[in-house]
């Protein structure tokens, strides 16, 4: 399988995402100005500070030519993973419900966090066990997940709440400790912590690999 990793001016973690994706398949960078997704089977919108995070994190990047193609790709059922700034971009693009607000602690915070897998049957977590804990770093200043109570209830019912911060780990103030959510169709997923920075024991942990591996498995199944 092949991942396409978007690259915006100001992206920071695109090469990390590229390398992480290569643990499970091929991966290639896609320049934000290009509409051609280069035949990717899945898209990663990476972390960083697209357009400097100016105005609102993700607000400007959402309008790029590549994002237009990603929206079409997602609407056609393609797998899209948004990490950190990528999550913000997907929310701004309305591919995911809700929005990300400045951290409740008002500071950029970089910390290894423990996550709990709420849904182990999603296309992004099917390589995990239900309730499994993942140790993955988070680093952001706009990570407080927000959606209206009604939306959150609906999302919960529809199984869209996929990852949450373990007790005591939610430094950004996300509602219901939400760390990662998917869309109703289950093919678009965003999370604030950085699974691409948890793929090597030497640099911290390998728990993030499960996200990429899940995507590979989901794609393989869909092809059978």
């Amino acid at each position: 399988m092949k991942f396409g990793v978007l690259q915006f001016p100001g992206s920071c973690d695109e090469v990390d995402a590229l390398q992480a994706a290569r643990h499970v398949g091929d991966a290639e960078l896609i320049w934000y100005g290009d509409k051609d997704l280069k035949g990717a089977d899945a898209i990663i919108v990476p972390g960083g500070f697209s357009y400097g995070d100016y105005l609102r994190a993700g607000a400007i990047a959402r309008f790029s030519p590549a994002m237009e193609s990603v929206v079409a790709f997602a609407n056609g059922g393609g797998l899209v993973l948004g990490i950190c700034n990528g999550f913000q971009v997907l929310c701004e693009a309305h591919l995911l419900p809700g929005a990300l607000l400045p951290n409740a602690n008002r500071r950029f915070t970089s910390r290894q966090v423990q996550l709990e897998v709420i849904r182990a049957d999603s296309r992004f977590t099917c390589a995990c066990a239900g309730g499994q804990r993942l140790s993955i770093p988070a680093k952001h200043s706009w990570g407080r997940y927000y959606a209206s109570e009604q939306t959150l209830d609906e999302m919960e019912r529809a199984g869209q709440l996929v990852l949450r911060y373990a007790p005591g780990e939610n430094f950004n103030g996300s509602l219901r400790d939400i760390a990662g959510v998917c869309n109703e169709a289950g093919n678009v997923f965003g999370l604030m912590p950085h699974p691409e920075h948890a793929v090597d024991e030497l640099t911290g942990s390998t728990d993030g690999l499960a996200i990429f591996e899940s995507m590979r498995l989901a794609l393989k199944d869909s092809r059978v």
Partner: protein
Amino acid sequence: MIRARVLIRPKAGILDPQGEAVERALPALGFTGAANVHIGRLVELDVEDPQQLEPMCEKLLANPLIEDYEVQLLDAGS
């Protein structure tokens, strides 16, 4: 060109930690009796067509899910 101002505020009911922090910091500096502090964004710009301001806010300047905005037209632009 017309000079315009857009005031963007956090929607009521959404936690505004920056506003709260300012509210907490004020008494220590000797300013008592301040309340309901909220912090938002101010965008000022010249536009040719003021009709564009509303869609500009909806699409880019504000995120209507979490923010309210108010457009003010000022005098002719600089």
